[in-house]
């Protein structure tokens, strides 16, 4: 039993955090809102150079051959800066799906992803829309019981604008020429795994988002003065943030456990992911609510950075399975006859 990260994993996190906080500033995110795609090829190139786009790409295909567990702390850091680029999607969803499909498709696309030369995006029916379909070089799309691979020419995209300007969402209509890469049970397994990985990515980013909103709020309430002192010295304000800290603190281990379960293909993975997504997104939503409250009217403005993180937290809670979906899965697990519950059952 060792529920800690290795020194290498911690160091990698430190260096990625330094990079992201320095490069992906709120100013740069705001600038991306003004561009045609909202995506920044230069930044994507930098992420590839750091080895991040190829983290889960097998070494044979030019990647680092690492696991979901190696990436989970980095996904938290992506959340911390509200990274608009589809890095979490690439590492946790697209690459593992390609890796599991294998064969020619994997051989063709994985090296390009690792090199930062291509983006592959996965669209599941569980999600209403497909994120970042407009920058995809290849789309892997669930269509009923089959999984299709489509090039940009083989689809028609309809943009759906989100309240979060960083999120680029599309309805995807498949035209002629897309080819089937998996069907029936095979496709269902790929889709189920992708959904768990996508939900894990949401959970990890939610942890980072919650931490960022706490940090912004602590800074703001330490500076903002009313009644002759910083508002952060008032208990009512303190307790708002302490409540967030409590929920956040207890959402971390479930998320790390979910990453471990996914990386090791454990039977408990789906359930562990649902647990993680529920508690991490709840923590982020509470962070959004309470951070907004302590920011007062400033938090209601476009100008103050809080909404960059708040809106992303709101959105993540309802994608890759909303609370209803994940609670239903947890319910199926615990209300079943003979369910493994109680002391000693957690790691059994």
């Amino acid at each position, binding site marked *: *039993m*060792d*529920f*800690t*990260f*290795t020194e290498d994993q911690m160091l990698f996190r430190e260096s990625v955090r330094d990079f992201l906080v320095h490069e992906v500033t709120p100013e740069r995110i705001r600038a991306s809102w003004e561009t045609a795609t909202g995506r920044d090829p230069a930044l994507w190139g930098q992420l590839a150079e750091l080895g991040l786009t190829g983290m889960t790409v097998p070494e044979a295909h030019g990647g680092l051959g690492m696991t979901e*567990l190696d990436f989970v702390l980095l996904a938290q850091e992506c959340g911390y800066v509200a990274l608009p680029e589809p890095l979490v999607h690439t590492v946790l969803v697209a690459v593992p799906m390609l890796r599991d499909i294998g064969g020619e498709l994997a051989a063709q696309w994985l090296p390009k992803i690792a090199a930062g030369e291509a983006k592959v995006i996965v669209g599941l029916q569980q999600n209403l829309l497909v994120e970042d379909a407009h920058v995809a070089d290849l789309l892997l799309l669930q269509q009923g019981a089959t999984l299709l691979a489509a090039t940009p020419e083989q689809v028609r995209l309809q943009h759906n604008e989100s309240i979060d300007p960083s999120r680029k969402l599309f309805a995807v209509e498949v035209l002629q020429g897309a080819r089937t890469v998996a069907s029936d049970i095979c496709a269902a397994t790929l889709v189920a795994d992708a959904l768990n990985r996508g939900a894990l990515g949401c959970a990890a980013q939610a942890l980072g988002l919650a931490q960022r909103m*706490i940090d912004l709020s*602590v800074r703001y*309430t*330490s500076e903002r003065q009313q009644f002759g*002192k*910083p508002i*952060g*010295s008032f*208990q009512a*304000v*303190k*307790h708002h*943030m*302490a*409540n967030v*800290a*409590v929920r956040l*603190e*207890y*959402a*971390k*281990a*479930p998320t*790390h*456990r979910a990453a*471990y379960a996914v990386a090791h293909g454990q039977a408990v993975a789906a359930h562990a992911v649902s*647990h993680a997504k*529920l*508690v991490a997104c709840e923590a982020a939503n509470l962070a959004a609510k309470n951070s907004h409250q302590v920011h007062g009217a400033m938090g209601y403005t476009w100008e103050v950075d809080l909404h960059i993180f708040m809106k992303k937290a709101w959105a993540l809670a309802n994608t890759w399975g909303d609370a209803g979906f994940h*609670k239903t899965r*947890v*319910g199926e697990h*615990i*209300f079943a006859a003979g*369910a493994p*519950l*109680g*002391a*000693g*059952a*957690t*790691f059994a």
Partner: protein
Amino acid sequence: MDLAFTAKQQVFREQVRDWLAANVPAAPLRSFDTAEGFAQHRQWEATLNKGHWGMVTWPEALGGRGCDLIEWLIFEEEYYKARAPLRVNQNGIFLLGPTLMEYGTKEQKARILPKMATGEEVWAQGWSEPNAGSDMAAIRSSAKLEGDKYIINGQKTWSTRAVWADWCFGMFRTDPHSARHHGLTFILVPLRSPGITVRPIPQLDGLPGFAEIFFDNVEVSIENRLGDEGAGWSVAMATAGFERGLMLRSPARFQETARRLVELYTTNRASADGDPAVKDAVLRAYLDAESYCLTTYQTACRLNKGGKIGAESSTNKIFWSELDQSMHATAMSILGARAELLPHAPAAQGVGTWLNGWLFAQSGPIYAGTNEVQRNIIAERMLGMPR
């Protein structure tokens, strides 16, 4: 990261399980807040100690097994699964014990810990005073050094287990000119000393689970001072840290409550689903109990590798106390009109021990430092908000 138990840990678990299966009393003991129940629980501590299960994390020389925190969590899991008796000496073994290990002299450890482990000496705590509750630095009870004795005067209150306990520990003002957390000294006091009056205070269940202690020129040998004179505050903070932190409330207790809650819900589903909030509350109870377990394991592994526990122990106390309260509140709503009935009432089928748990859960957000104080600590020391 490796989330599987080692073969050694599995063997340890089986060893604990087998011993408990052979030794846990078949009939539940009476409450340790009755004279008879207290004696039964003291006897159980002796039985535990005979099997070297009294405090598994202690060194073997002191009656323990030198277990690490993971083994301790395993022990607790098996202990709660076996429905073994509550620990009457928890103030001693979970709070004072670890503090003694850190601050006690060799002589004090040798004199106090073995008798604590056997239950021969049961400990009460003497933190609060009538005017020093959440504001513990307002302590006024005094201790004056005369020769090799302290002369203690004053009053402590809300002293858990003090009615039948043998000793109490607490802070006393040794410097009459000092203020706040300066000039306080941590002293261990035999409760049978002349000059001590213990006045029982009945709790919500009508039983005297705590008491007031009056000190009238009570003489205590200087060898019962823990740490230096005037250093009481930092010694006490270590104890409070253990209390809020890992030791006092291991996850097993709450996971078993969550399991029983799922069971209560599934057996009463037809009526319980009348309130759609109940199912969600049961789910949440399960998730939070699991989160508490996972987080505790993660912290324990970190501590095993030499990490330290800091202000995050305040998040711990808020989390488990509010979880316990909400789990029992949910059980009360499932039980409906039966919820208020004492277990022996004729119409009280299926009420189990929920009412008792519900009453006790009310104390969680208050003892060991109120949750409001914990929130201040989190905001100021963990998040760095201004004072």
